[in-house]
């Protein structure tokens, strides 16, 4: 096998396998000697190094393992830690609008309005902290009543809240106060 061909195969296998690979195993699979594998791998490692690539090949005894260049670590964390893109689907928006304008409301009532079971959407919205349990209906079975959260109000801005139906003036005043307080606390924190 040509040296370049071997390097290509090794690069592929080191990538695909992710963990360390023993030169002997590779040699057997590719039908070359262990020494040839080590030599080609060393060359590959050298190439990555000198071309300042984002990937590197490290030697561990007679094994090699592909890894990222150390300098990349910071970016890797940034990418991995990026908040998952939660998508607000039409289904979720619909459910949210019903809770917002009909609150407090039960799952059954939401399903009635939408024409389909909406348990999943309700649960998702609770998970996203946009709606929450605000009590139980005083009826047989005591179904949960849902309403929007403070987080929801905050997102939509305090001024527009008065256009939501079921919030009393006192509630709004209260929310405003709280929000102002929090805003003050936050500036102190920073």
């Amino acid at each position, binding site marked *: 096998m040509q040296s370049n061909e071997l390097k290509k195969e090794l690069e592929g296998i080191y990538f695909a396998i*992710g963990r360390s690979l023993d030169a002997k195993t590779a040699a057997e699979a590719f039908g070359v000697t262990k020494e040839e594998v080590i030599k080609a791998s060393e060359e590959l490692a050298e190439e990555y190094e000198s071309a300042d690539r984002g990937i590197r090949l490290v030697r561990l005894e007679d094994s090699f393992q592909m*890894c990222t260049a150390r300098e990349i670590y910071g970016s890797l964390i940034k990418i991995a830690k*990026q908040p998952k893109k939660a998508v607000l689907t039409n289904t979720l*928006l619909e459910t949210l609008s019903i809770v917002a304008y009909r609150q407090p409301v039960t799952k*059954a009532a939401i399903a009635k309005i939408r*024409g389909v079971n909406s348990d999943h959407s309700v649960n998702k919205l609770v998970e996203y902290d946009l709606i929450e349990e605000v009590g139980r209906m005083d009826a*047989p079975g005591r179904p949960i009543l849902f309403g929007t959260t403070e987080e929801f109000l905050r997102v939509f801005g305090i001024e527009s809240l008065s256009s939501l139906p079921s919030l009393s003036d006192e509630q709004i005043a209260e929310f405003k106060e709280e929000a102002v307080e929090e805003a003050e606390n936050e500036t102190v924190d920073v």
Partner: protein
Amino acid sequence: MEEKKTLDVKLEAFSGPLELLLHLIEKNKVSIYDIPIVEITDQYLDYIDRMEETDLDTMSAFLVMASTLLSIKAKMLLPEKKPEDEEEEEQTDPRQELIDALLEYKMYHELAGELKEREDEAGLVLFKEPTIPPEVKNYEAPVDPAELLDGVTLSKLNAIFNEVLKRQRERVDPIRSKFGSIKREKISLEEKTGELLSFAKGHRHFSFRNLFEGDTSKTEVIVTFLAVLELMKTGKIHARQEEIFGDIEMESQVAYAV
């Protein structure tokens, strides 16, 4: 005519009636646009006869096609009715609808073949598992509601709400709406009476109407009413109705002392 056609379709399984039909057409080396209906229908029926038992859905689809073929065959064998007026629109080939369906099906059938080739080629590529440090991997960022609702204003939300309400009003399936509710319900009087009794234990005064959530079926109302009667009979509650069709006010005789 050439020797009697015996089709070696015995071992082949066709996933649908159109696939079988396409196969027969290709086998007979005829054009989709000019299906020799009699022959094809015979062969088709022959296949169905020998079809191994399969699921009911598939089988019925084959039978539906068989009857379609038979109906086309009948139409083609019957003498054409002379149009009374020469200007009358052209007689459409009874096969036309079938031809269109076959052509569309054939296109996807061929594209499936193309996809298969792609799949074989793409299968030669290996991907890898993530190698991300566990402390990074296990980090799950919370969803940011502000970002989630980016671009959604209260008025948009209101518009969506109105849209949902509008749809609710318009949501009338023209056929099924005539059937009335087809919800399957089992509300046992016994259960309902039990529920009502435990409710009465926690509430001294309550009204019949307040026992229901918005979405209540007629059955449930009736069973609840029977449960009320049952509890009245056993003296667990007292009930009073001021006027006909008015709400029923109930006083619990078993409410826990407050």
